[in-house]
């Protein structure tokens, strides 16, 4: 019988621990597919974050080195500079990259560090139980923004990818989502593109992925996917924010 669907070679045979409807599982799978398709398993090194995806090294069958909260961009800088012929990517959540790790991320982009960041934006601190994140949108309720995020009390959310697109050293920045089959395919293409940008040595590449967190959003999976389309993308519009490679604006 012809096999039409199987686990990517670069994922271990370990079941994910993620909650039902969580975007991490989908994202892990498509990163695994891209690594396989681009034949990178033997030359890629991943930097998992602190947060829900901290155990990524149990799932990816590639070399991985754990970073402390927010420091992945600095660690990746040292890692990639020490072995420029390898492919290095960080996998970070919104609290990790847009709060505690903002400085490391912006400066890595400004220096044009030649690695890739997968930035998973679900608008909450997931692993610690759903606290307000730097990307929690106005009006969104979390355990530390009761009654919804208010600008006077909690400040405005940060559009980190837009900020990074301004940095002179960034080469490719795109925002996608994993809330529908079409968006998942676009995300996969964006990740492949980001790795290609790195392989070609253009500089810093980042794919921000809007990702559902039904558990902490207190929604069911379908509601969460719909909420991304109807609410989250208004604050974090999808699309290519920067591309210096000369490819047309939206390659897919």
């Amino acid at each position, binding site marked *: 019988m012809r096999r039409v669907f199987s686990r990517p070679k670069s994922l271990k045979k370990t079941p994910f621990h993620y909650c039902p409807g969580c975007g991490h599982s989908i994202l892990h799978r498509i990163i695994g597919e891209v690594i396989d398709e681009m034949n990178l*398993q*033997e*030359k*890629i*090194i991943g*930097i998992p974050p*602190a947060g829900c995806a*901290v*155990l990524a*090294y149990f799932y*990816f*069958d*590639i*070399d*991985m*080195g*754990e*970073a*402390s909260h927010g*420091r992945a*961009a*600095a*660690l*990746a*800088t*040292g*890692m*990639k*500079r*020490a*072995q420029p012929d*390898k*492919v290095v990517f960080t996998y970070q959540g919104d609290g990790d990259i847009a709060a505690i790790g903002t*400085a*490391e991320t*912006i*400066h890595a982009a400004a*220096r044009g560090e030649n690695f890739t960041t997968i930035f998973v934006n679900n608008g909450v601190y997931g692993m610690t139980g759903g606290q307000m994140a730097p990307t929690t949108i106005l009006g969104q309720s979390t355990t530390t923004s009761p009654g919804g995020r208010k600008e006077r009390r909690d400040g405005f959310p940060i559009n980190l990818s837009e900020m990074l697109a301004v940095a002179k050293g960034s080469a490719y920045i795109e925002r996608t989502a994993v809330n529908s089959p079409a968006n998942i395919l676009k995300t996969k293409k964006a990740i492949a593109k980001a790795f290609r940008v790195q392989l070609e040595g253009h500089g810093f590449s980042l794919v921000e992925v809007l990702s559902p967190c039904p558990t902490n959003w207190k929604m069911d999976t379908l509601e969460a996917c719909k909420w991304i389309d109807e609410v989250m993308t208004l604050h974090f519009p999808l699309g290519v924010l920067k591309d210096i490679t000369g490819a047309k604006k939206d390659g897919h």
Partner: protein
Amino acid sequence: MRGNHVVAEAAVRAGCRFYFGYPITPQNEVPEYMSERLSKVEGGVFIQAESEVASIHMVIGASMAGGRVMTSSSGPGISLKQEGISFLSALELPAVIVNMSRGGPGLGNIAPSQSDYFQATRGGGHGDYRNIVLAPNSCQELANLTYEAFNLADKYRTPVIILGDGMLGQMMEPVELPPEVQIKKLPHKDWTLTGAKGRPSRFIRSLILDPFEEEEHNWKLMRKYERIIKDETRWETSFMDDAKLVVVAFGIAARIAKGAIKRMREEGQKVGLIRPISLWPFPQKAIKELTKKVKHFFVFEMNMGQMLEDVKLALEGNGEVHFYGRPGGIILTPLEISRVISSYYYQKRLG
């Protein structure tokens, strides 16, 4: 050669190809020298990071990749690096961290001080761990110990701290530099993250959620620390033969004390010196051993009394301990310290 330049040159000769730092006085000559030197070495990488926090995590990245890597700073900057130093210990990664310490706490000043002894020897960051801490007292020893630090870091897969001070970093002395190592001849590391080519994939992590596994990891580190205590404790004694009073001092303070002791010896006072070179592991046994002959110990530090605690622990009540220190970045002269020791010497009717 200036102390800060000596550290940098000795590091490159030891095979250090990766340096990540951030400016802070009185160690700026280290990054300045490294930026120039590493640009001329094959595979050399220098980055002036956006912060001390970023620089220590760049160190982690390059260390995971298998490189010999160093960062340097002073007091306030070393505080910021503590997060990364705790991680280096947990992840069992080699790295060399230089602290040309200055007066503290807070911003303090830029004058030489030994007030970071506790921070260096007690781990400094969160969690149950130790760092190897080496305290040179001359430019020559800066060269030798920096060179040696890279070997120790690799051998034990642990961070090594060079605890100097502003005076050591700034002073100039003739130095015989160690020979340049050939990177390819360094021992192979079988744990690095270089892409899973022709071998199973690896991961390096410090998150161990199962308390029993974390306990075992802690015991593993403990066993390593016990090996280090056994094999890597370093100290130096001088004028000990007929000594009735022993001065205990480290780093630049020991250099000053030695001058003082020479002066006192000329006046017939029987004073000796023990200088811990490794502050962790601390030469506990060597100090305890001295109590067979000597009962009076005089601890001199450029702080309010930090190593003093280790001396007391080492003596376990055997012997009388007196302390004299000047914190805040004050540099004593041998004359001043000789007067203080001398008055104690006569007060105790030792001569």
